[in-house]
């Protein structure tokens, strides 16, 4: 599945070369009827993209409180949060609110 992932608000600093936009191909998980959920995506990001301080991005099995998530420019809290199912070409944005203002 092809997805576009964007990291902002300082989260990009946790990734290689501080790149903000990542066009990725996520292999569909074998279990769970081959669906890519946000929960699956988070662990995929942790394994494949995060280079340092994963605790700035994740806490328990979700994002760290204070990190905003948008799926196709819609607050993930309206899309089912961790259970939201992603589709081909979806755009997922992660923004940290934890940096100074």
């Amino acid at each position, binding site marked *: 599945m092809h997805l576009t992932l964007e990291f*902002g*608000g*300082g989260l990009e*600093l946790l990734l290689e070369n501080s790149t903000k936009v990542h066009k990725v191909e996520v292999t569909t998980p074998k279990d769970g009827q081959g669906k890519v959920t946000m929960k699956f995506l988070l662990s995929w990001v942790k394994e494949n993209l995060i280079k340092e301080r994963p605790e700035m991005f994740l806490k328990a099995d979700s994002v*760290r*409180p*204070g990190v*905003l998530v*948008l*799926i*196709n*420019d*819609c*607050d993930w*809290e*309206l*899309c*089912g949060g961790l*259970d*939201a*199912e992603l*589709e081909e070409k*979806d*755009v997922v*944005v992660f*923004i*940290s*609110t*934890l*940096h*100074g*203002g």
Partner: protein
Amino acid sequence: MDSSATDGARLPPPRAGSRLCVRCGERKAALKRPKTLEQICRECFYIIFEDEIHQTIVQNSLFKAGERVAIGASGGKDSTVLAYVLSELNRQHNYGLDLFLLSVDEGITGYRDDSLETVKRNEIQYGLPLKIVSYKDLYGWTMDDIVKAIGLKNNCTFCGVFRRQALDRGAALLKADKIVTGHNADDIAETVLLNILRGDIARLSRCTFITTGEDGPIPRCKPFKYTYEKEIVMYAYFKKLDYFSTECIYSPNAYRGFAREFIKDLERMRPRAILDIIKSGENFRISTTTRMPEQGTCERCGYISSQKLCKACVLLDGLNRGLPKLGIGSTKAGARADSDGKQRTKRSERNTSSLQGKHGNFDF
């Protein structure tokens, strides 16, 4: 990107864009408001967000027509959104304010120099004149110099004390009647908690005031007092506002960090918690037997101070005499050993803690 139609499907889990805005009932909801849990669309969000800030300004009589207002601008999300919204509201509602951007250059290579570039772009984007005051000019020291002299411990104390005064001095140069800062509801809830944790009664009673320093030369106010950080960041994201987000390179403030994390955890479980903590802070009543610090002015520089010399002058003295520890640490503990203990404890209260400001933000 939003290709799915508004089919109103109730099938779990709902796909992005399948819910309608509860306000207009027409467009797809784009976010869930932490304050009310309402699902609203982008357009309605802009209207509500700006209107709530307008109401806050009006109900608290934050400004008078003709005033010169300096916006404390760090280049970060809060002050960038504040500059944008305030200039919009000033136009829409004819506040009649002269708005300025006021930035402090602490002299932190790789951090403040980058964020100041953002403020310089904001100057052009929003058409607001910008004034930058630097620690180097005001105090003869940059933060880089200070860290070289004292190391990574306590440097935030210097930065916090100096920044507070630098903002006042910059505002005076601009002949500003008021300073506004981007402190949001999350920041204030966090500060209420910190002041409780530190037993800082003077600050606890003051930190929820929307306007402070009315007895001083230039009052400060916080138009975002009731505005959630989530909404500020969502607003900046949807409007594609240009802001800078990097942590200060000199040591994170661990104690404040814990309070922050705690607030965010609470917010996830019950978003109203943030407003409720502010309300608790507002409703604290200080017992009349608690001695409160008295305000005077610094003998050397004339800045407001509860002691003979203001904190900035004490710290500067230490730096210039090669004794950077001067004025650092537990003035209260030191005072206890003093023969005049009670008096000094009383006086030192107001000076001990503005020091722990969140980086990239301004202190209370």
